[in-house]
């Protein structure tokens, strides 16, 4: 890792949702702050800045990560995917997103992009989770609006495991 100095804004380049992106950040700048305040990403939401709520969840080189526990400089040279990456090429909503809409799986929507990113990775590994498995995985995210019922319904319907 290159030597970084405190008050210097370092150049970083990475692939954001498939597009080459670059910017400058001090070593201590959080990835969440960098994406929202430097790049204007409206899909990145911060709820706790200590890794518990899951609102800031995104993928770095495919690995599900908390943007609030990552420094911007750490993604130099990497691939970062946020919820925009889920949209099908022709635009609109992915099937899972449609299922969220059909099942009223979101209210304020603040927690939603983070949950969708975790699900995106999780369903790659476990395409047909049981409800208990799904609830276990979702317990890494806090939602204060929905009571989780409709989030669970949306996913179960999407994976074709609805009761």
């Amino acid at each position, binding site marked *: 890792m290159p030597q970084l100095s405190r008050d210097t804004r370092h150049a970083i380049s990475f692939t954001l949702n498939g597009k080459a992106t670059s910017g400058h950040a001090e070593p201590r700048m959080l990835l969440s702050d960098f994406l929202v305040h430097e790049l204007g990403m409206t899909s990145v939401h911060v709820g706790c800045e200590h890794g518990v709520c899951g609102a800031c969840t995104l993928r770095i080189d495919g690995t599900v990560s908390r943007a609030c526990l990552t420094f911007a400089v750490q993604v130099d040279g990497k691939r970062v995917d946020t919820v925009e990456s889920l*949209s099908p090429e022709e635009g609109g909503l992915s099937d899972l997103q449609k299922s969220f809409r059909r099942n009223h799986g979101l209210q304020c929507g603040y927690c939603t992009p983070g949950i969708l990113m975790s699900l995106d990775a999780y369903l790659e590994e476990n395409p047909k989770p049981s409800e208990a498995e799904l609830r276990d995985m979702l317990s890494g995210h806090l939602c204060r609006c929905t009571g989780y019922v409709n989030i669970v319904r949306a996913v179960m319907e999407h994976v074709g495991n609805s009761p």
Partner: protein
Amino acid sequence: MSQTQEKYVGQPVERVEDAALLTGSAMFSDHLPTRTGTLHAAILRSPHAHAEIASIDVSAAKAMPGVVEVLTGEDLRDISDPFLIVLREPILQWALAVGKVRYVGEPVVIAIATDRYRAEDALSAIEVAYRTLKPAIDPEEAAAEGAPVVHEDVGSNIVSTRDFVYGDPDAAFAEADRTVKLKISYPRNSHTPIEGFVAAVAYDPATESYDVQSNFQGPYSTHTVISKALRVSSSKLRMRTPNFSGGGFGVKVQVFPYIVLMGLASRVTGRPVKWIEDRLEHLSGATAAPNRIVSIEAAVRNDGTITGFRFDQLDDYGAFLRAPMPGPLYRMHGILTGAYDVKNLSVTNRLLLTNKCPSGMVRGFGGPQMYYAIERLVQRIAVELGLDHYEVIRRNLVPAGVFPYRAAAGALLDSGDYPAALEKAANEGKLEELRKRRDEARAEGRLYGIGYAAIVEPAQSNMGYLSNILPLEERRKNPKGGAVSNATVNIDPLGTVNVTADSIPQGQGHMTVLSQIVADNLGLEPGDIHVNLEHDTAKDAWSIATGNYSSRFTSSTAVAADRAAKKARAKLARIASQTLNVPPENLEFGNGRIYAADNPDNSINLYRVAGSAHWTPGNLPDDMEPGIREIGSWSPPELEPPNDKDQINSSLTYGFVFDFCGVEIDRDTGEVRIDKYVTMHDSGTLLNPKLAEGQVHGAFAWAVGCALYEEFAYGEDGSFLNGTFADYLVPTAWEVPEPQIVHMATPSLVTPLGAKGVGEGNCMSTPVCIANAVCDALGVENVTLPLSPDKVSALIHGEERPPPEGVETPPAPKGASDRVIAGTGEAFVPAAQEAVWDALLDPEKLAAVIPGCHALDRVGENEYRAEVTVGAGPVKGRFKATVILSDMDPPNAATLSGALTGLLGLSEGTGRVTLTPRDGGTALAYDYGIEVSGTVAAVGGRMLEGAARALVRQFFERLASVLGGGPAEAPEADAPAALWWRRLLAALGIRR
């Protein structure tokens, strides 16, 4: 052409909000553009619950790079006024503390810099000297004579006492077969939206006005509080809110003190200032629902009939009485008899101030506390009389056929059939089966209980409800009542329908519902209706009731939108009647066209009719105004000011909720598992059943949190103890079961759409329903929420027993409490014992070894002073450490005692370290007990575990390298979850 247009109101229409939210394009407050050059603020908060501010030195902070300004309460005092409150008591609060701090988390200094990081840097350079005072924390102690007083000028922590009597309670109690009594204590908690507060304010010196962008949620009666504090007229305070807010739940009213603070910061700096609240700030300093102690009594007959209630309510509002407090007591006032037909009632309301974060609106708004008292008492009545709990509820319900029904304290229950609802819930929820299930479980020796709760859910507050806190003569001078709502339907020149309104949504789907209502009126599809609920007080209609709170939407803004749409329809019909040669009253709207009812082929496109109002205004009927921009406003006549008998119809609509549940308690762990939950709602006509159900799910989930996990915990010194989401536990998908929802729809008689509120009922019914089930399972008289495993275990097994003989417990300092952290640890350094001992006594070596150490001096033979910066979880700060060594046994062991003080708090502790030669190196063992207070106490063990380990590892690695040896072994498997504090002190202790 099809003549019948599908109706959308009442359908589970998909939300128009969702596409933007699901794809991440929706803009929340933090995403809104601000002007170039906007500055960023960070707030230094009090680490003490109660202290005088002796001095504040901001000079070093001001000199730091990027720092533009640093302001204290004294600086703001000259340019602002204290916040208006409902009482005429000298409870003065400015945007920053003046003279004294009164709760942990109270804003003391604001630093404004070019970015947030630099603003936070500045905080660490501010020196504040406090003289701590004894705090008032426990509500009953705080209410007693001789308690420390939060506001000296008031002279007492009880700032208002009001007695109310309805009917003849004395006679009811005298004639009763018996009296059943209970005392309950409801905890302090909050709905904690996932998005915190955001406020960005730009002051314009030319017009002396403030432009505010924030996620404030109303009520806009608070606009007056802000403008008065800023000393401007209302037109010079422009408040803007976006379409999307990350949850509100009432909590986001309390953005307002920060709007004032950022406004003043902008005024002083001459630049826009933005602030984003972090989670620690939110949990410690945003707001909370008041905790409440209620002594409640019922006069009862032997058959279970309740003939009278007596309430004595002590409501704890924290350090200040911020608007709209004391809403939680008075918003529920008219409905104090709940769902029951009880004519005789007396109530004493006492408002208490303590050294805790000021209370505010939180979903349920007084209902959870009130129903906890009533519904717990009803369960006790059943137990004491040997009756079935369900039967006691049924017997006392307001009967069918008496609506509208005037409750004793003035609520006008608009509609319902409570007994039928009860029966429907029991049938569809299979109550009989549940009873069998309980019996079977009990026969097997398991702990299983059933709980019930029946409540009336009020919605749309009467703006006059707080008047009841004033004596009759005073409120006669200025009677207050009503609740005004506004919406606008605007059809543009191409015929597109646009709707704006005063609802300030936070996820409830208001855009969708308004699109349904307007679509039905105009014969269009919801997708044809463009709803924009950004609100701007400089341009949109608003009133004091504007906002999103008290389940106001369905019986207010939705009605205003319906009225606006009906006006637009009437206008379009008149214009179309000229073209179609049909009287307007004979025209129908459907599928985008306006047509003759008796001859659908005689029709015209709606957009053409609307367009003509713009393109050819000359052709409009003579008395008609051009364009189509129709405003609907509404204030329901039933919302009258309180009458001379202190009766008040405190809300407009009253839904009915009846819940029952089965819980099983794990005898070993004390864990409460909700086995089955049934919730019956009669919320009048449902405008969108899918959204209504979502509201029930959300309220239920929070209520499960309130019942089992959530409480803002304070130490007896006023330290705030759960400042992260790892400490303030919020239920996840794993903990929240799916409730069975049973619906009934008795339309409201007082709102044109027949709808009532639906979003708060379970916040009121569920906590007490679960508590009743736990009481039933354990056969105990009373319980206090949240029902955490340790509390429930204590109910099953008694208090925890002391450890058996021979099992050592770590030392605890005097005044041991929740905040005492104790533990033990071990490490190995590959250097000789003598060398390690010497290194630990050598200030220079030690300074190099302690992580984050800036300076370390020996100030006495065995006394050191150090300055260290340590961070863990969301807190980071600079501390001064003093350490005294004693009981020295060179080179084998020493005891150290010491203290760390800093802006984030204080800690004191003692520890013992021993050194033993082992394998050519030295093994170190230590134990310690430390008491923490201040901000850092809010960061609990779990959050700090990782940081603690890292610090200790660093310490030993550095020690090893200073001694020139190989790598040290980091201590493995530490003793009980340990704060870095103890680690650090324990580590310091090793130097001998």
